């Protein structure tokens, strides 16, 4: 079946489609053509409608929809800077020509060929799911740094246009999410700026003003303090001014040269409302959105980063969070591939069948709760996984073999160990893992396991079927 190169999404059903494309209503994203097409084209002149279509795409549950490159017509893109920045490509589309140039096509292909694009969506709901979707999106566009764009039209002052469409509600959740992913080293930030946000409403538009410490009025003035060397008189510069000259009000001599006749040791402030004289004004902020007056130190100060996905983040984007555990385990234990493990087991079964005097066992452990732990622990997750790996190292011998099945299941071959011995080893490992869970997360683990005797008709494939 021929693939439709692109799908044009528009509220205008009578739109003429360029060659190779197909029209779909924005509510028909589950259509097979939408799923298989190379990219979406959002059509229309209305900015709000275009935004809504984009939000619908990015919030779809299927990777092939929400990660798909989105092309926007130049007409509507020019109307809104943020909308322009929130799509992958801008095209001078007309009713007859294919909307993409050769370079743009290459970019579309790069996104489509990314492994994240072909991942099955998890069924986990909530924040973790959004974080995974963000990671997958950033992974599929790993060449693009997600730069913040400042805009007076956004309450928070800065926007990450490509990412913001994943968040249906306008609140601080995108900031929290990006901060969380950065803390877990899944994305890395490049410093761009710092900004104060209102502690009450997240608004970035704050009026910083200096006020009188006595009456809080912003109607204050500052002046240089002048020190006349000759007589030691010190007063605000204003008091020295006589016509265009500086004359000491104490000794009535003219001040000519700074550094020779006088200096300016400090500043002095005065309030035009209450006449109070002070050395340092108070600072306050007034939020343009909620009008609340707050001290600057009580406002939220955010560091604004441009974000890029890390190698670890890409790993998780492709394989999910459980894969991180596999990586750590491989670094710390002699993990062999599943195929190699299978072969060793077959050799061991053959050996037992021949000599009949020895007995070996296989232990399968299901390490549940690992991904949830990573979400809770953030960057400490790696050391947590290392502790668990160390628990295995402590119990296993060099003659034992180990592999990982699925995302959190560990299969271990215990040579020359009967099921009783294997049961003891397994319980010890479960106990150690349980202790680590309790020490780090203050909860018991839900690790389970089972022991299998390797007799002459043992079939690993049969025993581990359905584990992954």
């Amino acid at each position, binding site marked *: 079946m021929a693939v439709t190169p692109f799908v044009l999404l528009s509220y205008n059903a009578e739109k003429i489609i360029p060659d190779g494309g197909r029209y779909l209503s924005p509510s028909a994203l589950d259509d097979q053509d939408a799923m298989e097409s190379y990219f979406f084209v959002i059509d229309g002149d209305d900015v709000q409608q275009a935004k809504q279509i984009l939000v619908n795409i990015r919030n779809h549950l299927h990777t092939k929809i929400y990660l798909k490159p989105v092309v926007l017509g130049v007409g509507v893109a020019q109307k809104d800077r943020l909308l322009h920045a929130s799509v992958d490509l801008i095209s001078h589309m007309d009713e007859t020509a294919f909307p993409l140039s050769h370079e743009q096509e290459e970019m579309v292909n790069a996104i489509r060929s990314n492994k994240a694009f072909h991942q099955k969506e998890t069924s986990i709901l909530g924040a973790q799911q959004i974080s995974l979707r963000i990671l997958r999106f950033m992974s599929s566009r790993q060449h693009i740094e997600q730069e913040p764009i400042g805009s007076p039209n956004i309450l928070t002052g800065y926007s990450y246009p490509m990412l913001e469409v994943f968040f249906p509600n306008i609140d601080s959740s995108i900031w929290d999410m990006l901060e969380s992913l950065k803390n877990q080293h899944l994305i890395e930030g490049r410093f761009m700026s710092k900004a104060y946000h209102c502690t009450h409403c997240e608004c970035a538009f704050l009026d910083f003003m200096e006020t009188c410490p006595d009456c809080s009025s912003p109607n204050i003035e500052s002046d240089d303090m002048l*020190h006349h060397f000759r007589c*030691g008189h010190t007063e605000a510069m204003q008091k020295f001014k006589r016509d265009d000259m500086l004359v000491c009000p104490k000794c009535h001599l003219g001040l000519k040269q700074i550094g020779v006749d006088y200096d300016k040791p*400090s500043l002095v402030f005065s309030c035009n409302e209450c006449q109070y004289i002070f050395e340092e004004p108070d600072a306050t902020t007034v939020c343009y959105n909620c009008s609340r007056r707050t001290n600057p130190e009580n406002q939220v100060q955010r560091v604004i980063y441009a974000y890029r996905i890390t190698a670890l983040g890409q790993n998780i984007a492709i394989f999910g969070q459980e894969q991180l555990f596999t990586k750590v385990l491989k670094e710390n234990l002699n993990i062999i591939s599943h195929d190699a493990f299978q072969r060793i087991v077959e050799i061991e079964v053959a050996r037992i069948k021949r000599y009949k005097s020895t007995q070996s066992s296989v232990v399968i452990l299901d390490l549940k709760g690992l991904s949830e732990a990573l979400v809770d622990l953030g960057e400490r997750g790696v050391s947590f996984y290392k502790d668990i790996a160390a628990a295995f190292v402590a119990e296993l011998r060099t003659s034992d073999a180990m592999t990982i099945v699925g995302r959190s299941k560990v299969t271990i071959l215990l040579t020359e160990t009967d099921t009783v011995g294997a049961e003891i080893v397994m319980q010890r490992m479960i106990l150690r893992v349980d202790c680590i869970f309790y020490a780090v997360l203050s909860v018991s683990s839900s690790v389970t396991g089972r022991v299998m005797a390797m007799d002459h008709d043992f079939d690993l494939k049969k025993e581990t079927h359905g584990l992954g």
Partner: protein
Amino acid sequence: MLWDVFSTVQDFTHFFLYLDADRILHYFWMFLIFDLPRYVLLDLLVIFIYLPLKYIHRHRDHRARQQLFKERPLVSIIVPGKNEGKHLTKLAMSLRQQTYSKLEIIIVDDGSDDDTPVVGRRLKQQGLIDYFIRNEERGGKASAANTGLIYAKGRFIVHLDADLHLNNNAIERVILPFMIDERIGMVGGDVRVRNADDSLTARVQAIEYMKGISVGRSVASMVGMLRIVSGAFGAFRADVLRDELKGWDVGPGLDGDITLKFRNLGWKIFHEPRAVCYTHVPNTLPKLARQRLRWDRSIVRFRVRKHVHILKVSKNFRMLDFLTVFENLFSNIFLNILWWMYLFQIVFFDSEFLLRIFVINYFLYLASNIIAYIIALCLQGDTLRLKDYALVFFLPLMPFYIGFYLRVVRTYAYMSEFICKSSYNDTWNPWKVSSIAKKEGL
């Protein structure tokens, strides 16, 4: 051995008792004509006039205190200084524990390069002081004090050194004279020695302060001839200091200078011996010499040069001011010259009795010091501490300290100031200020 001592004492006693009046005057004129009246007879006025008057006026003092707490005028405390961070917290605590609490505390940092800005800003944040003003460039003490004056809103200004410790009623006591007599423009606090236990040098200074400041200034204040209010602890009428005089002039010796200016305007100067503060004094002789050189040079610079007009007859001539400055110059510069002449006389003309004259002089000066010390004890009364009584054991050192050490230092100070104008090279002021003062002879 004992017999030798006895015979020597007998010899000295015999020598002294059998001298006729002419010979006594010839050998001991310095003590009998100048130092006895100046150090003993004048001090006795405390016993016979000052304290009885104080007792008689006790109800007036009580009423003044009631008036002070009824009116509760704002008192601005100005603390200028450089690199005084280590003292500021204690001083601020001491000020916040005062019996008179309507205070406005202004600390001026005169270009410190230690942790003073950190300490000052912390005290401000904690609400222990009202202002911390940082002058990035050092301008000298007068400049720093004048900076503080701009912010001061009080009816009275108190100038304090940062290393002081105040008795908890010191501010109340130093303000009370203003409520008693509205012609008083300045009040001096009673500066005492805080670190007397540090060394012998500090102990003899403690006795000197008891005599010179407590007793000497109380007497001078009583007779209307007080010529200095210590810069360490002095209170001023703000309207005069700020509006009429426009603050302090360039130092060193700015405390004596501002006192004379108040006097010139006709204001009374008062010393209050019960407004007690304690200061650190130099604890070694070289450090002490440096301090005294600065003080003594300022006498020449300000009394002889800057305010010499007081000694001249003019339309603003005031006899009391004339006498005050004259007494100051006489007792310091002239008597110092006389002391060298006296020394010259007994060494070269009366050398046969040199030892006897020296020993008898020692006992005469010791006796005068004991009398002055007893008067100081009477004057300071309930403000004395137990360790102040223990200073009695160090009185025998005083004739050497005052009679020789201070006179030698003073002589060197006067000569260097008269000949070289050394005070202008003193690092107490930054060079940018000193150079102009030197150029213009200020």
